């Protein structure tokens, strides 16, 4: 009897397993967008635009000579007929932005599937799909184009900017979005002393104030000129907003609700700031990383529709999104964004299974071959836009050991170390030969020349030996050069995988340096420790530095002058002390550092493209190049970018980098599922 039961159970189990094995993804797309011949990027049908690939409704209607009729996503049909949602022409702003799709008018429906590692880790790419900020970068990665803001106007010296907003623009909860939301952001969040003890970078350098002209016009004033403002908003600042939903947040804010503190404590928070922080965060993705995220209205193309789980997040199309295509269909086309949190090692499998529609952030180049082989099976195409750089090497010229300090701060030593690296071999061994040997230079700016990029990158151990001999570092008996105090020249390289990518990188480099008589001791540590050591000035080499992919570098000049970073010093701590204490403590830096700092002060207020801009830019590059404080290895390394063949209206990625918020310039709101 018992045996029978067991056998039945077992066979049921096996039967279930076999019977239900290997089910395929059967997500279907509904398609009722009006697919007619309409202007696209591929065929503009004579439509001309002031900004690439988009124009304002009035301009478009003037050119076509017809009034554009709007259509909505059938996803909202039920809510419309029940009266929960107004019809589409009432939901759109009076002046929606008209977008030229890349190839064709898309279809509504479907689910865009992506992967990230965990909450707030590798999620920027998914956020980029739904992004909406005041302005954004066009896919040429140099033109700033209108987005939430209809237009803007700078004053002559870049201290005042006036934004025009779209009349009738609404938040995802249907409440109006207007100038108050920008005023609220600047006055009550950015400048609020309880929320921000100091004004966050880069606003702090400019010191903003704000004035509402009327509901759709707002003027932001800066104490210091801030020409990089729009580049910041469209580029590496695009993951933050420059507005906030006042109607929703004011009940948590002490200024608008005197009981906010009491209510916050009653709700289990320490104070109102903490409660406010669950509904507003400088980094937008942090808001939708908690269950409260479903309540927070947004202007983005999709909003969080259910509480996030530890496995995934689901976003649904925003019925109030402010863009239409050239046939009058409200964007976005795609109904859902589906983000899964998955172990990075499993990504290639899921990609090969065809379960991922677009993926690039944090992908390893080493997966290239296997993914390429399976393109057909997984129904995707691989693109290889530039997006990463090889780890740079920065010697600590202010290290405590006097003998080492003398060596590290001798520019001949840094030249020799650069010449001793076999970049071609490094490229082939670690980056499948897909990178380009380059110095650490900004990759997308007009004032960097080819000879800057190729400075001292040729593999020339003979020349390196010559330079080291010239420095008086005699070769010792063990094939290791001797320092001035007679000890062997040994460099301790404490590295973290986060910045060198793989232990093979420092291993190869130390082999190259060993050949010219510089001994390297390698030690893997965690990022936290390297930062502590950087702060204590006890690290010999760092690699924590990012070469910016920026069109003008104007919003991140910190990267090119000591201490080479904003958060914690990369190199030159005593110099920094000297600067902040006005010479009372620390050490006076060498002349070239003082020169760089002086340029840096002017740089933030210089106008991109002007003669002065070119002049100063060239100077920054020249000083950095001549001193070679940051030794570059490889540049222009592609970021493996997977684009599903299911997707329509996807372009060719030019650059895929966090500096441009990944796919943000490539307009995911007009992608669709074929």
């Amino acid at each position, binding site marked *: 009897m018992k*045996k029978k039961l067991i056998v039945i159970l077992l066979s049921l189990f096996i039967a279930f397993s076999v019977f239900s*094995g290997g089910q395929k993804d*059967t*997500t279907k797309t509904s398609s009722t967008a009006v697919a007619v011949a309409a202007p696209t990027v591929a065929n503009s049908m004579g439509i001309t635009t002031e900004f690439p690939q988009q124009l304002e409704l009035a301009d478009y209607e003037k050119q076509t000579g017809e009034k554009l009729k709007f259509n909505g996503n059938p996803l909202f049909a039920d809510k419309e007929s029940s009266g929960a949602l107004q019809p589409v022409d009432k939901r759109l702003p009076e002046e929606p932005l008209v977008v030229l799709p890349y190839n064709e008018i898309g279809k509504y429906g479907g689910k865009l599937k992506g992967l990230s590692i965990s909450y707030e880790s590798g999620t920027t790419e998914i956020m980029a799909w739904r992004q909406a900020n005041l302005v954004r970068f066009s896919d040429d990665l140099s033109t700033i184009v209108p987005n939430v803001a209809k237009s803007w106007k700078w004053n002559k010296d870049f201290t005042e900017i006036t934004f025009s907003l779209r009349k009738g623009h609404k938040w995802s909860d249907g409440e109006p979005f207007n100038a108050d939301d920008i005023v609220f952001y600047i006055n009550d969040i950015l400048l609020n002393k309880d929320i921000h003890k100091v004004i966050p970078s880069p606003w702090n350098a400019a010191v903003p104030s704000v004035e509402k002209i009327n509901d759709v016009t707002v003027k932001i004033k800066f104490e210091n000129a801030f020409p990089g403002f729009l580049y910041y908003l469209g580029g590496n600042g695009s993951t933050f907003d420059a507005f906030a939903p006042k109607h929703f947040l004011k009940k948590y804010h002490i200024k608008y609700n005197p009981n906010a503190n009491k209510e916050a404590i009653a709700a289990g928070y320490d104070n109102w700031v903490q409660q406010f922080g669950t509904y507003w965060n400088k980094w937008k993705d942090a808001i939708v990383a908690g269950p409260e995220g479903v309540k927070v209205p947004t202007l983005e193309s999709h909003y969080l529709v*259910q509480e996030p789980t530890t496995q995934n997040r689901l976003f649904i199309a925003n019925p109030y999104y402010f863009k239409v295509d050239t046939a009058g269909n409200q964007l976005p086309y795609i109904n859902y964004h*589906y983000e899964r949190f998955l172990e990075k090692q499993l990504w290639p*499998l899921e990609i090969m299974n065809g379960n991922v529609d677009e993926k690039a952030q944090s992908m390893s180049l080493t997966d290239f071959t296997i993914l390429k082989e399976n393109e057909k099976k997984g129904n995707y195409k691989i693109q290889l836009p530039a997006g990463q750089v090889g780890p740079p090497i920065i010697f600590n010229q202010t290290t405590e050991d006097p003998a080492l300090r003398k060596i590290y701060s001798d520019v001949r030593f840094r030249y020799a170390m650069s010449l001793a690296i076999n970049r071609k071999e490094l490229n082939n061994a670690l980056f499948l030969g897909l990178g380009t040997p380059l110095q650490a230079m900004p990759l997308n700016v007009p004032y960097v020349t080819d000879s800057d990029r190729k400075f001292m990158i040729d593999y020339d151990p003979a020349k390196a030996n010559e330079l080291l001999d010239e420095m008086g570092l005699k070769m010792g008996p063990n094939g290791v050069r001797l320092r001035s105090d007679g000890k062997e020249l040994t460099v301790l390289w404490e590295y973290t995988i986060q910045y060198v990518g793989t232990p093979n990188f420092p291993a190869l480099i130390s082999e190259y340096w060993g050949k010219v008589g510089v001994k390297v001791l390698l030690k893997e540590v965690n990022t936290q420790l390297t930062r502590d050591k950087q702060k204590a000035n006890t690290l010999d080499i760092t690699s924590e530095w990012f070469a910016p992919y920026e069109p003008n570098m104007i919003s991140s000049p910190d990267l090119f002058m000591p201490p080479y970073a904003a958060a914690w010093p990369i190199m030159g701590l005593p110099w920094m002390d000297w600067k902040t204490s006005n010479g009372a403590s620390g050490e006076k830096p060498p002349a070239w550092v003082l020169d760089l700092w002086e340029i840096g002060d002017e740089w933030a207020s210089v106008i991109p493209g002007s003669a002065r801009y070119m002049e100063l830019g060239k100077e920054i590059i020249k000083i950095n190049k001549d001193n070679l404080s940051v030794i570059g290895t490889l540049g222009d390394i592609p970021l493996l970018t997977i684009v599903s063949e299911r997707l329509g209206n996807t372009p060719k990625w030019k650059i895929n980098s966090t500096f441009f918020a990944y796919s943000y310039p490539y307009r995911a709101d007009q992608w669709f599922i074929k």
Partner: protein
Amino acid sequence: MLELFVRRLGTTLVTMFLLSIVAFILIQLPPGDFVDSYAGKKTQGGVVVTQDELDAMRSRLGLDRPVYQQYAIWMGNLFKGDMGFSWEYHRPVKDVIAERLSMTLILAFSTLIFTYILAIIIGIYSAVRQYSIGDNVATIIGYVGLATPGFLFALILMFLGQKWFGVSVGGLFSLEFQGAPWSFAKLMNLFSHLWVPVVVLGMAGTAFQLRTMRATLLDELNKMYVTSARSGGIPEFKLLMRYPVRMALNPIASTLGWELSKIVSGAPIIGIVLSLPTLGPLYVNSLLSQDMYLAGALILIFCSLVIIGTFISDILLMILDPRLRMGKADVK
């Protein structure tokens, strides 16, 4: 019997209290804290975090207090049923764990059932048909099963599943069923994914139990009472089930506790390799990001499962084996 039960329960509780201290110390051990790893993650994404922001966060989370105070607060809340707040997931630890607990238990108990059914049936067969082809095959598979590390086996199965069936990894459901309400199709889909972790997790245990069953049954089969029963004319199958198999089940029952704890402790590794929506990967992630209340609660849950497993197996043995029961009764 009752006294024994109470005494066992007492030691179980004391062990759990000691464990909570160990758990708390363990999660404090790695250098840095949640704030550090939070800052690290942010910087990786190119976001600048200032020292002021970090200090503010630290004091908000109570990380600037001494360790014993942090423990006292944690313990106090635990008794109130509050396991603390998961900083990484922005909600109470209880909710985070609840989301994954059911899948974890389904997996653990499916594995247990799989292990015992397979081990007992094949074990009996192997013993009765000793040195037959079937026995030899079972023996070989058993040894391979014992010797192969679970994670390697998981990788192999995952590769084969991907290559031939297109089974999606990273969960117990296909994409279209994730988040869908329960239905027959969803149940089927669960079974189509569940077999991989069940086989991987249960493999070593099955092999071990199979060998135990075979060995003990072989011992029993040669005993006089079997021969005498057979000479009495009892049909072979009935005889087998009624006497020697029942005796041979004894060691198997007594190891139930170990088996549960083995499955529980093996689950995180397999869970990570297969990216299952169970507590294992959550546990490792919480350690990596130093989300310490979540980590602490998970360590406690894992340890409790082991202790409870041992407790159950003690009780089972007392019920199954009259000698044990009697012996203890005499002590009383």
